[in-house]
């Protein structure tokens, strides 16, 4: 998504048409290639909604809650690589959007959110549906604007898209007082060539790239740790990551957000790392001698205890955001730049310098990795009486792989099992809330992806608790005939919470039982969806096939084992190489210190 050209605004027009603020908004969005807006109307955005009514080129998807509008825009953005656009009213509309904005900020998703505001002369008066939107959203956006003059609308909208999509992507809010939407002004762009201040560094420093190549060429136990930044840098970055891994023969692990950038089926892939990462990925990270982090930010779910994180390695980090480098873990070589641009240079240099000829053999390292792999850390005990959640995901994977589905998730155990077992071979197919861990993300995100790709299979892998957090969006899917599928791993628990309580609070399952659940099949039917319930392992495949073969939205209530835990797991306050596996007897010191780390 990062572009090298600095032109953010087209040249100024000779004559300027007089337009209302609302007309200017629609004009600018059209010029910027916006195809769809996810929104919800209200008093403070009526002028914009009136313009939406009068045109056909931009589609409006009416959600049922503003939080879902932002998640849908995120799903759209993550699956297409284009920015997602949101429109909400003032006050409660804007505050409802805050969770989505924070989610987009933490996962670096480009979203432009237009919020209505009370008329300029009412600002600060506690007017009806007034909220200090720029104040509230300042810490949860990459940038925000309060537009006080309609003549500035075109420039601000162009700039907002530039800021949202360049550098490290993120959400941008444009707060629009109602009278500014009504007032007329000449539609004129300033024709400014480059942004005044915001010019992210795209190309990496050549000397540092050379340092990185030298380190990697000498490494005996190297690893590539790839993150969401590779996906944000566009499909080319994923191709270059594969090319570099092939050239060098280095094993690759990925963060939750980075899944799909490197093909999961490739023999050089070690699986996901971190708290619920694989045995081989976490051990390889811990024992490596040179680590190349690409678009990954050493998040605490990845590092575990920082003082025990990969203690003996030289670390190289490529990131578009200088502030991500040396934030949590000090690195030896920090390269600020776009992942695609830097990887491209690395592939070229590796070839030109014939680094391969000097590279020590990685055979011993791969042998060690094979040894870790032999642990088969994702294995679980299957059952003929009850559907194991891992089994359900494995079957979902097997029965849908040929359709190249877009998968979203909610948050909890099901999310981790999906990450472990789905195996993505392509970028932009995996939509999950990694940084904020927002329950209720998955259904609207799947809707956003389905809007972008009407003919693709879009599945939300859900938990019975999370799905209830944006369940109202079933109505949105019905209205727009979006054939999204929701596959609920129903364990009757907030499974991830229960797992932590069992492991660190001596099994006191405080408030983590999903009581009084709705009948999901009847609920589906009430919303005009197809509902399927499955509980017998024998019927699992048939249920999945029925789901994917139905040409409308389907909700599957898949009743699974209730107290299965998600492994491997790096427990509270532990190092990467101290993982628990399925079947381990868990003797956890429930120290306050350990409880506080997580």
């Amino acid at each position, binding site marked *: 998504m990062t572009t090298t050209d600095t032109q953010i605004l087209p040249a100024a027009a000779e004559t300027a048409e007089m337009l209302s603020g609302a007309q200017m908004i629609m004009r600018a969005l059209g010029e910027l290639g916006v195809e769809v807006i996810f929104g919800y109307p209200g008093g403070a955005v009526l002028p914009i909604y009136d313009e939406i009514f009068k045109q056909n080129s931009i589609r409006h998807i009416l959600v049922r809650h503003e939080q879902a509008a932002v998640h849908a825009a995120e799903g759209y953005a993550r699956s297409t690589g284009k920015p997602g656009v949101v429109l909400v009213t003032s006050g409660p509309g804007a505050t409802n959007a805050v969770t989505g904005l924070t989610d987009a900020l933490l996962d670096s998703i480009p979203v432009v959110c237009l919020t209505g505001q009370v008329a300029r002369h009412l600002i600060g008066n506690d007017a009806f549906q007034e909220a200090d939107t*720029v*104040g509230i959203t*300042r*810490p949860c956006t*990459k*940038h925000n604007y*309060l537009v006080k003059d309609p003549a500035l609308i075109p420039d601000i909208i162009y700039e907002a898209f530039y*800021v949202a999509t360049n*550098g*490290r992507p993120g959400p941008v809010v444009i707060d629009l007082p109602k009278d500014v939407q009504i007032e007329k002004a000449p539609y004129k762009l300033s024709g400014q060539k480059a942004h*005044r*201040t*915001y010019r992210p560094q795209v190309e990496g420093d050549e000397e540092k790239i050379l340092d990185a190549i030298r380190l990697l060429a000498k490494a005996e136990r190297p690893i590539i740790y790839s993150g969401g930044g590779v996906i944000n840098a566009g499909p080319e970055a994923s191709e270059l990551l594969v090319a570099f891994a092939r050239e060098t023969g280095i094993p690759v692990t990925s963060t939750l957000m980075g899944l799909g950038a490197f093909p999961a089926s490739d023999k050089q892939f070690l699986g996901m790392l971190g708290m619920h990462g694989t045995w081989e990925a976490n051990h390889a990270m811990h024992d490596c001698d040179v680590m190349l982090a690409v678009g990954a930010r050493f998040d605490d779910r990845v590092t575990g205890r920082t003082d025990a994180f990969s203690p003996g390695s030289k670390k190289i980090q490529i990131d578009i*955001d*200088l*502030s991500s*480098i*040396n*934030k949590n873990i*000090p690195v030896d070589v920090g390269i600020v730049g776009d992942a695609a641009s830097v990887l491209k240079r690395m592939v070229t240099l590796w070839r030109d310098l014939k680094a391969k000829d000097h590279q020590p053999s990685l055979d011993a390292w791969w042998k060690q990795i094979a040894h870790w792999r032999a642990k088969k850390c994702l294995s679980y005990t299957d059952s003929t009486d009850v559907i194991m959640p891992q089994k359900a995901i494995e079957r979902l994977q097997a029965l849908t792989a040929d359709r190249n589905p877009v998968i979203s998730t909610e948050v909890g155990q099901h999310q981790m099992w999906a990450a472990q077992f789905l195996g993505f071979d392509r970028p932009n197919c995996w939509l999950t809330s990694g940084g904020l861990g927002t329950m209720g993300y998955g259904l609207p995100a799947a809707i956003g992806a389905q809007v972008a790709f009407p003919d693709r299979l879009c599945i939300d892998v859900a938990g019975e608790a999370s799905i209830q957090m944006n369940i109202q969006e079933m109505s949105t899917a019905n209205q727009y005939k979006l054939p999204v599928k929701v596959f609920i791993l129903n364990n009757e628990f907030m499974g991830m919470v229960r797992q932590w309580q069992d492991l660190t609070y001596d099994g006191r399952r405080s408030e983590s039982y999903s009581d009084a659940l709705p009948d999901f099949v009847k609920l589906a039917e009430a919303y005009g969806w197809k509902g399927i319930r499955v509980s017998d392992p024998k019927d699992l495949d048939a249920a999945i096939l029925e789901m994917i073969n139905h040409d409308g939205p389907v909700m599957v209530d898949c009743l699974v084992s209730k107290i299965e835990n998600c492994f491997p797991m790096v427990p509270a306050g532990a190092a990467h190489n101290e993982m628990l596996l399925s079947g381990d007897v868990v003797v956890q010191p429930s120290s306050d210190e350990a409880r506080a780390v997580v």
Partner: protein
Amino acid sequence: MQEQGTIARHTISVIVDNEAGVLARVIGLFSGRGYNIESLTVASVDAEAKRSRITVVTTGTRMVIEQIKAQLDRLVPVHKVADLTVDGKFVSRELALVKVRGEGEKRVEALRLADAFRANTVDSTRTSFVFELTGSADKIDAFVELMSELGLVEVARTGAAALSRGADGL
């Protein structure tokens, strides 16, 4: 060079677009991420180009100071960030107004000390003075300390304004 783990004081200059909310962004960054602010000053310095200069005095380990600079730098309305403490020699001044109440010997002593510190007397009554003093934070600390024994009533300080020494600007 500052040792890895030690905490040191840094004076950081930030040139920003003089637009609504920019100060809130900077302050919000410090409070939101738990960075320390010892002092912060801001004023428009170029009306035509609509630029303001913010001078922040903060403390932290080397990694934290690097973070602060990187975080400031990625705010959209920020033009430039410079760490005066690491970039070379710099001058830093603040202004203080110091009100002292007293009679007789103490009053004479306060005046004498003010003179020694090159403070100006900007208000005086029979029983009080307001002194105006510019200088480094240390100098002002020392002056306030001395006045506390001579009838100090209250102090107002601006916080540091700082520039690098030599011919080059930011």
